[in-house]
Every structure is written in C-alpha cells, then in structure tokens.
C-alpha cells in the first residue's frame, strides 16, 4: 500500500506539469486549430532558460519564472506571426492545406530548436543543483520539495488560466472567436489578435512548466520529444480543445506513467500511457470529461 500511495502521489506531482503544458497545447489547438509539433521544444527551451539563468546569474528558478514567461510569450507571438500566420495569408489556400502547412512548419521549428540547443549546449544533460533539495516524510510517503513546489505552481498557473478564460473580457473574446469567428469580428473583436494571444499564452504556460521542471529534471536538447508525445496523448484524453480536461488528464497520465514504471518496467512507462490512449480512443474519443468544454 505504501508503494501504491507513493506511485499515486509521484504521478500527481509530475502530472501537474504535464497538465500545465498540455492545457497550453489544447488551448492553442482549440482556438487557432494549429497542431503545434514544436510544443515539446518550448518545454525544453523553458528548462534551458532556467538552467542558463541559474548558472550564469544564480537566479532562483522560481524567480526566473517571470523573465521566462515573458520571453516565452514573445517567442510564441513571433512564431505565430512569422510561421503560422503566413499559411493563412496565401491567396486561395484551403483551411486544410493551411493546417497541414502549419504542422510541417512547426515541425521545422522544432528541428531548429533541438539542433540549435545541441550546437550550443551539447548532448549531455544539465541540471540545477542546490535548489529545493529537501525531502519530507509524511508517514510512509517521501515527498520531494521540488516536486511539491512544481505542482503548486502548475496548479496556480492553471487556475489563473481558467479564471482568465471564464471571467475576463479577453476570455470572453476568445470564447466568442471559437464559437464563430466571423460573428466575433463583426462585433469588433480583432480575431487575429485573439489567435496571437492564445498562441502566446499557450507557449507561455509551456515555458513556465519547463522552467519549474528544470528544478528536478535534467535538461537535454532532445528531452522535449517525449513531452510532445505526452502532451498529444493528454489533450486527446482530456478532449481536444478542452483546457480543464487537459489538466485533469495530465494528472491521470502522470499516475499511469508512474504506475507502469513501478509495476511493469521502467522503460515501458510511456507505452503504458499509449495503452490508456488507445482505450480512450476506443471508448471515449470525446475525452474523459465528455462534452464540458471550457473554451467553446
């Protein structure tokens, strides 16, 4: 029972971050219809950002959240305006061709990021030592301080996103654009700005997740590829475009991953997620939460 509890707690704690960057991906997809193949690399960039700020300026990763969030937001806007928007401004292009072009372009950006990081930092893992290193014991449980803090930040960021989407005028504009973008632009919403904003916010959340993850997970240029897959699986489990669903599914994915690693085999931990993914596709393709969509 002790092991089982430990597995669940570990899964939940890492799952919070999965949930955070997956809600970023699903936010982007739900609003802009962009399938972002570079999503995992924004996690990597967040991690390397934290590592660089820590090793060069001794900046605590928790303080570094702020500059990294701003940088990720701006980078997201840049990627949207230069790569994604380009596919929408070609005369005569169909929405489907545009979407396929976006997949290939974001994939190209992903290769640029991984290779660029490889050139700059080499393939060996880099980690942040000496921050949040404590471990607490609660009964039979061992709790790492870094993981607890990371979970807290993920939860906080998600709640802010949720409130932003449901309670603010910006959120209202976003939801209106998703429902009917022609109508939205008729009532004076700048829909392009809505798309840029959602894309940037999605990337910002992902960057934050990367920054916090770096406190206990070593960064390598290729680390993002695994996170991309986790994010893909998570957004489908949560229901495509469902921000809250993605967060809950992230927690579940974390638990499944930990359980597979403990009870089956550690190198099969991601295969366990995919089995769950296939089951979801079979029985609940609309997502585990069903029709409750926050953004639509």
């Amino acid at each position: 029972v002790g092991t089982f509890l430990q597995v669940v707690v570990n899964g939940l704690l890492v799952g919070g971050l999965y949930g955070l960057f997956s809600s970023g991906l699903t936010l982007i997809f739900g609003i802009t219809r962009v399938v972002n193949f570079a999503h995992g690399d924004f996690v990597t960039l967040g991690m390397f950002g934290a590592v660089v700020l820590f090793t060069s300026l001794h900046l605590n990763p928790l303080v570094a959240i702020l500059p990294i969030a701003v940088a990720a937001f701006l980078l997201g806007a840049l990627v949207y305006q230069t790569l994604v928007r380009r596919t929408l401004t070609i005369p005569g292009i169909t929405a489907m061709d545009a979407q396929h072009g976006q997949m290939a372009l974001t994939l190209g950006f992903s290769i640029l990021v991984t290779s660029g990081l490889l050139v700059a930092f080499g393939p060996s893992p880099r980690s942040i030592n000496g921050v949040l290193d404590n471990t607490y014991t609660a009964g039979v449980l061992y709790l790492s301080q870094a993981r607890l803090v990371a979970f807290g930040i993920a939860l906080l960021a998600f709640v802010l996103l949720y409130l932003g989407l449901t309670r603010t005028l910006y959120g209202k504009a976003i939801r209106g654009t998703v429902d009917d973008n022609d109508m939205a632009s008729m009532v004076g919403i700048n829909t392009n700005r809505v798309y840029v904003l959602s894309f940037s916010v999605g990337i910002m959340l992902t960057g934050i997740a990367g920054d916090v993850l770096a406190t206990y997970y070593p960064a390598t240029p290729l680390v993002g590829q695994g996170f991309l897959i986790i994010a893909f699986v998570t957004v489908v489990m949560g229901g495509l475009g469902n921000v809250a669903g993605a967060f809950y599914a992230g927690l579940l994915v974390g638990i499944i991953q930990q359980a597979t690693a403990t009870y089956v085999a550690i190198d099969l931990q991601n295969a366990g997620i995919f089995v769950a993914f296939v089951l979801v596709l079979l029985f609940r393709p609309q997502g585990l939460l069903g029709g409750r969509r926050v953004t639509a």
Partner: protein
Amino acid sequence: VKISSKARGYLGLVVLGIAATLPFWLIQSNFVLSVVTLTFIFMLASVGWNIISGFGGQISFGHSIFFGFGAYTTAILQSSINLNAWLGLLCGGLLATVVAALIGALTLRLRGIYFTLSTFALTLTFAILANHYGSLTGGAVGLTLPFGGTRPANFQFGNKLWYYYVALGFVVLGFLVAKAVLRSRLGLQLRAIKDDEDAARASGVASFRIKLATLCISAFVTAVSGAVYMQYVGFIDPESAFGATVATQIAILGLVGGAGTLWGPILGAAILVPLQQLLNSSLSNLPSGVNLIVYAVVFIVILWVDPRGLVSILRRVYRQWGRRSLVGRGPDQVAESAANKRTAALSITGGAMGGGELHDGGDESTPRGR
C-alpha cells in the same frame, strides 16, 4: 495554360529516362550511388504516405510504423526461418496492411486530427516496444541481416547498381499504384472526403470504409519501401525503423513536395533526401546539429513561400509565365484562356478529368483564419 495529360505522360517518361541513365553520366562514385538509392527508397515511402495523407487529407505522422514493420518482418523471417527475401517483402507488406487496418479501425472514424496525433504516438510506442522485446527484434542493438552470398533470387546483389534499379523499379510501381488510386472511383471518393467529409457522407460516400481501404494500400506501399531499405542497408534498429526522425521524414518529404499531387513526394524526396545525406557527410566536421539546422531552414523556406509545397510553387510560376506570354496575342485567345481558367476554378473535379492532379487551389475564398 494547362499541360495536357498526354504531355504530362511524356514528361513522366522523360524523368524516368533521366533517372534510369543517371549512373552512366552523373553518378561517378559509390557514395553518390548510395545517396540516390536511399532517395528512391524514401521516395517510395513518401509515395505510399501520399495515398492516404495527400489524396485523402488524413495526415499521418507515423508511416514509419509501416516502414518499420516492412523492414523488421523481412529481417526476422529471414534470420529465423530463412525465408526468401522477396517473400519476406510480401509478408512485410501484408503484415503492415493488417496493422494499418487495426489502426484505421481505431482512428479513422474520428476527425483527421485524431489520426495525425495517434499515428505519431503509436509509432513511438512501437519504438519503445521494439526496444523492450529484444528477443524478437534484437532490442536497441538492432538486427543485422545474415549475409548469404550474391543471390539475386534472395535479394542479394553483388553489384550495388542492382539495388539502384530495383529501388527505382519499386518507385515506378508505387507511382503507378498511386496514380491508379487517384484515377479510380476510390480516388474520386477520397477527394470528396478531403474537400468536405460531411458533404461526401451526405451524398453517399462510405467515408470510413474508403479511408480504411486507402490506408491499407498506402501502408502496403510504404512497407515495401521498409523491406527494400532492410535489404539494401542490411541493418535496422528501433530508432531507424519507428523513431520520430523517420516518422516525420516521410511526412515532410510529401508535404514539402506537395501533398495530394502525384509528383509531390517524388520532387520532395529528390531534393530533401540528397540534401540531408550530403549535409550528414560533408559538414560532419562541424558540430553535430548544424546539418539539421540547414536542412530545417531549407524546408521551412520552401513551405514559407507556399505551405502547399513545391508543386504548388511550380504551378504558380508556370501560370505566371503563361499569363505573361498571353500579352501580345489576339484578344480572342486571351478571352478564351480566361474562360478556361474560370471553368477550372468552378469545376470541382477539374484536375481529375485533366490529368490526375488535385485541384490547384481553385477555391478563391480566403480561409476562415484559423
């Protein structure tokens, strides 16, 4: 300003003629020969990919599943029960078709995006499984083909030139399969599904079954490329069979060339695979990663110019050139050509009747901005 289907056929024969004689005037070293042979192999993989992803609009980022099954099946059958390699190739194709049917049954009832995400997730799952269950696949170490001497009946050639022509032959076969699909009733139904799946279903197209059948054909072609790769290279491991690099490579070749056009994957592979191979070898004294940066920049630039790929770029250039050549002709001809253009834009199946190419963006309405 339209190329007739006859002219297109001749163009195809000319391209084939050039490809078949390359070893006699351009290819002077074994290195170049192997680059072009690998180009043909990935070209075939992408031609297969194009059948479901291009013609049907269901973008797969996991055709490496079929590539890997093709490669592993022939290798395992050959090393365990000493099966003939040509039969192994056939078995690989059939097994990949079965896998395709299972994956399709799972995902093709849903919208295309589920297919994209699932294929990508599944190919990496197969990579993990192939790593873990090493007794069958050799695990991370990989599988090396047993060398049985030079026996053409068993896909073992002494002269590397044979592999070149076998690979080229399979590309031609794959191309003809793709062309047959596009020209058939199946191809028309696929196009209807790609343009508007709801409308296609409303007019009686059994979209799920059509997509499933197409995926099976597509998987078979790509699996053959995997088997040829195995026989040519003689080595496979989980990463080079199911890994993300192969998975995305196959799709990128098609997307950069022009998904949904017959010549797209041919053009994409002819440009990108040699580029990649040359970068890998000639820039190897640079830090690792620089070659991939150059590769990525090249294909980003191409897609930035036109997200529909090279064929679309060529078509625009050709049309521009044609329009310019109209200046100075009689007004009748100009009016006639304008009328032609209008009907081309109006007819839904314009390309299909003409020469087996997909509609060239005749839809002038701007996308919905998403």
